């Protein structure tokens, strides 16, 4: 497990300045309700405006409308978007993992069909992995695809699928055959969420959202052309995909805005020595996490797959965000109200109810710690 020290070069810093200027222009502070990190609202118009600047699908091949740009450049853009609270919900998953997955293992036909639309910020994706009886033990999924004429017929249920009610496509992990061990025989299928037999049910959540969904497949037909990667190789593909998903700035920029906005609204905190201590501790951690995350991006650019490093960063980052939130709450005089006139309070009220999920979604910290522990033996 290695984290090589790295800094942004002049070119990357110029990109950072460009994105900041764009955001200040298009989404001036106070003109929109910021989201907490990747829970930013879905706004196709914004995604498309971003795409017009070449900032969606940056890591995807230029031949298909992408930027062929390094992961670090994508990191720079992602960091700016997330700390601004920009509405990235529409393109986030497509850009972060579904697009890169198709670029890596997709057929030329699939790439031509999906990548350009992803790069234009038009197409949105969600992920179908968890099931009611398969959470941490993902290999135990029972959604099954059975051979049919020209494709597969899918039956089963996916759950906790963020955004399935408003996205276009799902990248679904299903069982297509039975291998020697249960990690063989899983495949990733592209499912059109408007196909007959697909039923999406929003699940109202503690934080007031209904973005998590249950998706039921009843005899849903998926043509051969929509199988992603070799049949039966889904487990290995997910491993790579999760590395992309886990090591990025999304994991440590979900509560940042709360801190920033609180300081903006209560400048007196700046002279409070106890708050100073919190700020110092938080900033030290942010710097550490940022460096680790940036290092992962550089590693990806070298063609490696830092899956263990990504697990470590997510474990640390999500725990840090929860602890930071608790510490910040100590400086708030009353229980934050969701309908408050203060943006800091609104963000805090949302964060309070959302933060407990950080250590669960995208891999529980128990699983991540196991991955890291296994990595230590290497």
């Amino acid at each position: 497990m290695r984290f090589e020290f790295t800094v942004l070069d002049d070119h990357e810093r110029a990109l950072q300045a460009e994105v900041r200027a764009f955001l200040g222009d298009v989404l001036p502070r106070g003109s929109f309700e910021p989201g907490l990190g990747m829970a930013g609202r879905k706004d196709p118009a914004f995604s498309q405006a971003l795409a017009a600047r070449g900032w969606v699908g940056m890591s995807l091949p230029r031949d298909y409308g992408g930027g062929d740009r390094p992961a670090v450049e994508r990191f720079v853009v992602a960091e700016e978007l997330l700390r601004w609270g920009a509405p990235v919900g529409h393109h986030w998953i497509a850009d972060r993992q579904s697009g890169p997955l198709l670029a890596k293992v997709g057929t030329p036909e699939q790439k031509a069909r999906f990548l350009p639309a992803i790069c234009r910020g038009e197409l949105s994706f969600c992920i179908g992995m968890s099931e009611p009886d398969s959470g941490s033990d993902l290999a135990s999924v029972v959604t099954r695809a059975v051979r049919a004429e020209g494709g597969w017929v899918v039956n089963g249920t996916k759950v906790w699928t963020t955004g399935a009610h408003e996205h276009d496509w799902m990248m679904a992990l299903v069982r297509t055959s039975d291998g020697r061990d249960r990690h063989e025989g899983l495949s990733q299928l592209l499912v059109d969420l408007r196909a007959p037999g697909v039923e999406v049910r929003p699940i109202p959540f503690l934080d007031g959202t209904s973005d998590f969904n249950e998706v039921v497949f009843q005899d849903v037909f998926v043509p051969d052309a929509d199988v992603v990667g070799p049949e039966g190789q889904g487990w290995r593909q997910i491993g790579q995909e999760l590395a992309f998903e886990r090591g990025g700035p999304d994991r440590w920029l979900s509560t940042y805005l709360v801190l920033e906005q609180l300081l903006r609204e209560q400048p007196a905190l700046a002279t409070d020595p106890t708050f100073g201590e919190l700020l110092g501790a938080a900033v030290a951690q942010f710097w550490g996490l940022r460096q680790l995350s940036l290092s992962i991006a550089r590693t990806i650019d070298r063609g490696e797959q830092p899956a263990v490093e990504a697990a470590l960063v997510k474990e640390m980052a999500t725990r840090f965000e929860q602890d930071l939130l608790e510490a910040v709450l100590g400086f708030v005089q009353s229980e934050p109200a969701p309908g408050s006139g203060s943006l800091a309070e609104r963000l805090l009220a949302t964060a309070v109810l959302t933060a407990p999920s950080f250590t669960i979604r995208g891999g529980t910290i128990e699983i991540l710690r196991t991955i890291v522990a296994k990595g230590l033996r290497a």
Partner: protein
Amino acid sequence: MADATAVDRNALDLFERSLRGLLTTDGVDVDAALAEVGWRDFLAADPVAAVPLLFGVQGELLLGGTALDDVALDALDFDPSRLEIDGALVHPRRCVDAAMRHDRTLVVDGLVVGERTPASFVVVVGSGAVIVPATALDCAVVQGIDPSLELVRVRGTVSLADVSMADDVDGAAVAPACRRALAYELLGAVDAMLATATEYAQARHQFGQPIGAFQAVKHRLADVYVARQAASAVLAESWHSEPECTTLAAKALAARAGALAAEHCLQVLGAIGFALEHPLHRFVRRVRVLDHLYGTEAELRTQLGRLLLARGRVPRPGSA
């Protein structure tokens, strides 16, 4: 002595059973049910038995109601009905009184439980209490994270000439008594969360075994239980010695146990714990709001520290 204990125990069990029977009915009017079982008489006669029982059940079943007012009034030694007023108690949101005197005015800012429209409010000020006409204050339903508590924030500035003093009351006894009751309620909620998570850990299978088989899960639940037991021990102590200090400690510990239970039980349940269709979210909300009444965990710790420094000594546990 043994005989008396046996009778008491039976009476308590009977009381608890009738209480639970009444309170687990859908749409129950909690205050009416409590009146039916003679809760106020029980509270007056044996608070040491009554408070843990009722507030434990209240926390466990996520009830609303105005039992906290009864505890406050009992401690205050004040019966509003004797003055023919229906006074609702204004409880403090923080570690200070719900009302502060400034010369000839009173600044009120507190919470009333169980949304109602009384004719007047009873507010503790220092070692006394005042009765404020409801028309003199602004009331706003609290749209916080636990609407089921029906909290109303009551605020305003009144002239002392417009309020009446409650005579011969023990204002200083109210906060300790209410903190104690709230601590029992917090632990009731903790017990319910722990039961839910433990049951889930046994029933939910992943990787071919119940998730409770994994040490990481066991430890989380054990940590909650340890915190709960510590709070419970100090709560029991608070009836016997130094109530001013021990109730501060007890509520702080109970709030800590509540927060820990919310965190760990949510983690053990995974995503399902966040879904509104599962009851856990209601407990998560409840413990957060209970934390704010009569002082948050952090405020209580600070208050306790201040108190100990002022006294110049740390009281020995178990001393009178």
